[in-house]
């Protein structure tokens, strides 16, 4: 199976009876229907840790495999940025 985000191969792991696909490239994890609930149930048996947010059907903020890390929440239009930002956006 190929990763829908970066097209690298996905590897299947079995954790406590739950099948998990992990991408060999971007390390993204994909769960089939019901698997998140199974994991959440098991986690609940360990303690009071809140369950993780549900993974989106598609990796959020689609970006290429070589995209800048921590893409979200950048101060893109900060003042220090402005001059070079403007110059780059307007030139061949």
């Amino acid at each position, binding site marked *: 199976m190929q990763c829908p985000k970066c097209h690298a191969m996905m590897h299947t792991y079995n954790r406590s009876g739950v099948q998990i696909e992990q991408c060999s490239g971007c390390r993204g994890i994909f769960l089939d229907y019901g698997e998140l609930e199974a994991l959440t149930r098991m986690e609940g048996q360990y303690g009071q840790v809140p369950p993780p947010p549900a993974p989106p059907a598609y990796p959020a903020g689609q970006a290429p495999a070589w*995209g800048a890390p921590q893409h979200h929440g950048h101060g893109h*239009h900060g003042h220090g940025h402005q001059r070079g930002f*403007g110059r780059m956006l*307007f030139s061949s």
Partner: protein
Amino acid sequence: MDRFAAELAALAVPAAAAGPRERPGVPRQHILLADRPDGTVVRNGGVVVKAHARDSDHAALSVRIRIAAAGPLDGILLAPLAVTAPEGALTTLLRGRPVSAWPHGQPVDPERPEAAPWEDAARLLARLHRVPAAVLPGPVPPMRGPAKVARALSRMAAAGPHPQAAVVLAAAARLPAWARGEAPAPQSAVLCHGDLHLGQLVRHPAPDGPWLLIDVDDLGLGSPAWDLARPAAWYAGGVLGPEVWERFLAAYRRAGGPAAGPEGADPWPELDVAARALTVQTAALALAKAHAEDRGLDDVEQLMVQSCARIGTLPPDLDRGTAS
């Protein structure tokens, strides 16, 4: 203003006479808008005259300018003015350089790139990409995007050694040969602008007419992803915020643009090669310019070099067989 620019400005007079909204008369103050080997641009009243690159392919350029004048591009590309006389030719020569004339339009305010018309740009590209090539004056030349990657890499090499040049070259090596202009591009019947950035949009009639695309020097048939690739490269490098990128992409898709897959799908399988190519081009030109101006890279130029570093070190299984 030097003599060449003054001679160029003088050519605005017959063009102004030819233009529907201009009358012949005493030329007003000339303004030199750009003076580079690939384009000297002078504004004279309501007319902008451009001397194109000396080494441009004159026949191909002439077709590109006739395409801009063609009916199917009305409302997409700014239409040229006759440059020699009313009803005259669309191009002439000035000291060996092809010259064209255009009505003046209101550009995007360079002080306010955040207020740029991203959705308009996207819609214009979507419309451009849907113009059937068969209705155009021809032969339609290839889009010059890959040739510009090659030229940027040559400029970087000619500027002399730079400590970060190896990073850019490593990323360039991960491009397919065609994207570096070293092999013919895949066959395409899609008309592309070839050099989209925020300086390529004007409102005509100024100051508040509809937005149009300008600068047809790189126009031609090719991969429409190329026209999305500069914003895509800016977004991927962290220069452009995800909200602006998503506005641009959504507007392009909603207008029926063919380059980035359907709404909701991951656009990157379609955009990846072209976005890498524009990342390489931008970083190579940044190194060449920084070298020529004897300065360091500014922060957004650094971001593009950092993108090159990530491209150059991608695991081979993420490369989708694009290298050559």
